């Protein structure tokens, strides 16, 4: 493509609107405009210049801010729809059963719920279209930034101090007028601007005062931060970067930690504490009265073990690493893993104590305790009696085809079949014992009676390892730097130059916060006797001043 030669002799890249060097408008449109569009300094942007090939079209699509805002709004709307009803992962049914999920939404939300499920909104944030939108957002951020930052950088670097009067005249803030002594005014203006921390460049009777140019890079810095963040999120899909497991551990149990090879966890105790009126601070009394119980702590006391390095595969030769109380907000941390207190179940049956008695006399042959995790087969009692445990159903759920069945291995409702062997009945008598019931095939002389039960608590823990966290944090920090850089400072430029004789031209531009720029300009104007200027977008202030003078 051919270069555009400006009258000042500078060669501009094809597509330039304002000459990079002197600022003369180069396009017909710019020449006609009263206030020139200063965004990106009128530089040649790829998206505004090339519009033919497919690549151009894709580039132009994603570089458009209109499209970018459209994508932002699409993400916004889909996200909002996702909060209408609870998402799949907050629904208390089997996550893998479509039928159960559908039934849940249908039961609670009727037809709309069914529709919500059928359209896939119940798992909005994992849907392919949501992910596509996020991908498009990322693409748009990259392309739109590259399309603008390079030409902007080049043109700010190449800008000349002395601008053509046609550039000055087309600025939003512009003034011209005769001064008593143009050179003195310029010198004084320079002095004042320097005291306001402006960087001054002079050239042939012209001043360019500029400050906070770095704020122009803010948007590109924060977009870089966002891209790093999105990249970090993408990495979580790669195995090894991200572990997310859950485990249920009972008091007294030692278990391998899922997702963390060679590590073992032992639960010593689970504690749940509530605020009591006696112990808690007096000021909390009213709240405790109104609400009832307020939980103070969920805590699992654990010991962490690691398999010894020189131990044989399969052996469990463990090395104690540390004891730690895991509470909410204070996870156990080791080797990049975090273990969180997430859930609990109280009072699961641990063991049951029974005794064998003779029905008629009530005579006891002694007690025995059944460990519900590992029930033994035979329990020896006094006087030569013993009880054989010939059937165990941890979670008894009725009888099917003449056989008792257990619906889970968790001892929620334990049931047993005993064979009671006594000196009088050496063949034994069979008895089926469940909670609050005893079944006998024929009338027995002896009976196993429940004495007591021991319970224990179970902790629900989550195990996480996330190597991407530092990438995400880095992205967040860079975003914050960029957004602060771009928001809390603004790029201000003031041009002052001599015209014919003692005439002075004055123009100013900022990317935002015109009010402060005008305040500074007023100070310079008063100090250096510069001509008054007008703000072409604010016609109220000038009329107000006139009214005020009347």
């Amino acid at each position: 493509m051919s270069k555009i030669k400006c009258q000042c002799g500078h060669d501009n890249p094809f597509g330039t609107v304002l000459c990079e060097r002197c600022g003369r408008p180069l396009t017909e449109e710019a020449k006609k405009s009263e206030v020139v569009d200063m965004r990106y300094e009128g530089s040649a942007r790829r998206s505004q210049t090339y519009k033919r090939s497919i690549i151009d079209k894709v580039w132009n699509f994603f570089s458009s801010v209109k499209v970018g805002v459209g994508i932002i709004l699409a993400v916004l709307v889909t996200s909002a729809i996702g909060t209408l009803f609870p998402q799949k992962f907050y629904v208390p049914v089997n996550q893998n059963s479509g039928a159960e999920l559908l039934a849940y939404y249908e039961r609670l939300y009727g037809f709309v719920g069914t529709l919500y499920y059928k359209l896939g909104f119940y798992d909005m944030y994992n849907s392919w279209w949501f992910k596509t939108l996020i991908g498009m957002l990322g693409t748009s951020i990259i392309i739109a930034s590259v399309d603008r930052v390079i030409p902007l950088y080049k043109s700010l670097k190449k800008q000349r101090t002395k601008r053509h009067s046609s550039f000055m005249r087309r600025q939003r803030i512009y003034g011209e007028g005769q001064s008593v002594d143009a050179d003195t005014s310029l010198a004084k203006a320079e002095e004042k601007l320097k005291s306001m921390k402006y960087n001054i460049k002079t050239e042939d009777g012209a001043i360019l005062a500029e400050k906070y140019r770095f704020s122009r890079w803010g948007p590109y810095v924060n977009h870089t931060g966002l891209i790093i963040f999105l990249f970090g999120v993408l990495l979580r899909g790669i195995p090894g970067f991200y572990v997310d497991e859950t485990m249920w551990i009972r008091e007294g149990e030692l278990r391998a930690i899922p997702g963390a090879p060679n590590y073992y966890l032992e639960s010593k105790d689970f504690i749940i504490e509530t605020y009591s009126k006696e112990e808690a601070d007096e000021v909390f009394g009213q709240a405790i009265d109104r609400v009832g119980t307020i939980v103070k702590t969920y805590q699992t006391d654990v010991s962490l073990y690691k398999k010894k390095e020189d131990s044989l595969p399969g052996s469990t030769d463990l090395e104690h690493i540390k004891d730690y109380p895991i509470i909410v907000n204070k996870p156990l941390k080791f080797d990049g893993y975090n273990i969180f207190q997430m859930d609990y179940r109280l009072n699961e049956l641990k063991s049951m104590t029974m005794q064998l008695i003779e029905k008629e006399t009530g005579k006891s042959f002694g007690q025995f305790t059944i460990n519900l995790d590992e029930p033994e087969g035979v329990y020896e009692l006094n006087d030569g009696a013993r009880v054989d445990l010939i059937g165990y159903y941890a979670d008894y759920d009725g009888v099917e085809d003449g056989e008792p069945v257990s619906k889970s291995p968790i001892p929620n409702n334990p049931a047993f079949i005993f064979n009671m062997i006594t000196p009088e009945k050496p063949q034994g008598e069979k008895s089926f014992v469940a909670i609050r019931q005893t079944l006998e095939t024929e009338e027995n002389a002896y009976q196993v009676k429940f004495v007591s039960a021991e319970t224990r608590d179970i902790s629900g823990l989550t195990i996480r390892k996330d190597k991407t966290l530092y990438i995400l944090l880095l992205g967040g920090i860079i975003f914050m730097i960029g957004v602060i850089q771009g928001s809390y400072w603004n790029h201000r430029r003031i041009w002052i130059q001599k015209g014919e004789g003692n005439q002075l031209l004055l123009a100013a531009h900022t990317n935002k916060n015109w009010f402060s720029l005008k305040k500074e300009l007023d100070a310079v104007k008063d100090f250096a006797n510069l001509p008054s200027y007008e703000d072409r977008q604010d016609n109220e202030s000038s009329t107000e001043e006139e009214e005020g003078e009347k």
Partner: protein
Amino acid sequence: MGLAALSANLLLVAFIAYLVATLFFGGAVKGAKSEASYRNHRWGNVGITITIIGFVTHLGYFITRWMASGHAPVSNMFEFTTAFGMMLVGAFILLFFMYRTPSLGLFALPIAVIIIGYASMFPREITPLIPALQSYWLTIHVITAALGEAILAISAVAGLIYLLKHVDLTKKSKERFWLEAVMFTVVLVLGFVVSSTTFKMTGYEAHFTYIDKNEMPAKIEYNYPPLFGMNGYEIQSPEAMEPLVEMPAVINAKTLTTFVWSVLTGIVLYLILRLIFRRPLAALFQPFAKKANSQLMDEIGYRSVLIGFPVFTLGALIFAMIWAHEAWSRFWGWDPKEVWALITWLFYAAFLHLRLSKGWEGKKSAWLAVIGFVIIMFNLIAVNLIIAGLHSYA
């Protein structure tokens, strides 16, 4: 007097100070010919002095309550909303000293007053912290997020002034309708405050049992005469009125009852106001906005988004993610409150892009600022009370 009682009294003083300061700002605006001439008006100076006194006592409320409870007072609906009101006033004071404009105070302070009034309708007693909230991140995350939201809210105040000045109220238009709708919404909040206070003073209580959405029996207490009954309700208080309609399990009929009572009261209030003044509320307030400088309001609206957006990002997203990772084991879980914070953030990001690259200034920008405030309020009120996820501590 104990710290807790002192704290409550300080809040009352702040509340009254804001009301009085509003009157002075009104005087400043009314007495001046134009923005240029009222910048250093005496009434305005008195107004800002009283505002600062109010703010200091409000801060006193915050600190004494913190001392009394041992944790930052931002742990429930009352505490958070009150803190939000305080920061709104703080943000106004900051912008007042940047731009010296009393019109902003005339509109920002009444909004702060309404917010504090709204907050006071929720249980005010000091509550001990549940395990999930026992972290220094509570202080850091919530205070930063509230501050960001408060600064963003100032942009809506400036936007409202801009719109009141520029929307032609003599002709029928969509803009006129929506501006009046904004006014009406404010009256609805007043309706909530009025109705809630009335029933609280009469000491109304009605107890019910019902079946919750997991098909378990549950109990509930109404403080309003029950218009709507919970799913499968049974009255436990003999003198209570029979609900008119029974609602399905997913709808909290108590919240709905409160909402409908508030709306009804709000409508009555609105009609009374219309009868007294015989014109739309927007037209009533328009003379106060007429003297504001449009460019200045536009700039304040934009500037407060620029100042507030980074603060909001830091508090409501970054600190939120760090804490969520500590407490809930994941930095992001698509909890409704999280999603709405993201929506707020996306909205203001769109606002900034439209303004910077598409040149959306003036009315368009002002409308966006007002919508932004609506989203923030939606996240505070509706998401807490209706959608309710992990964040429903109120």
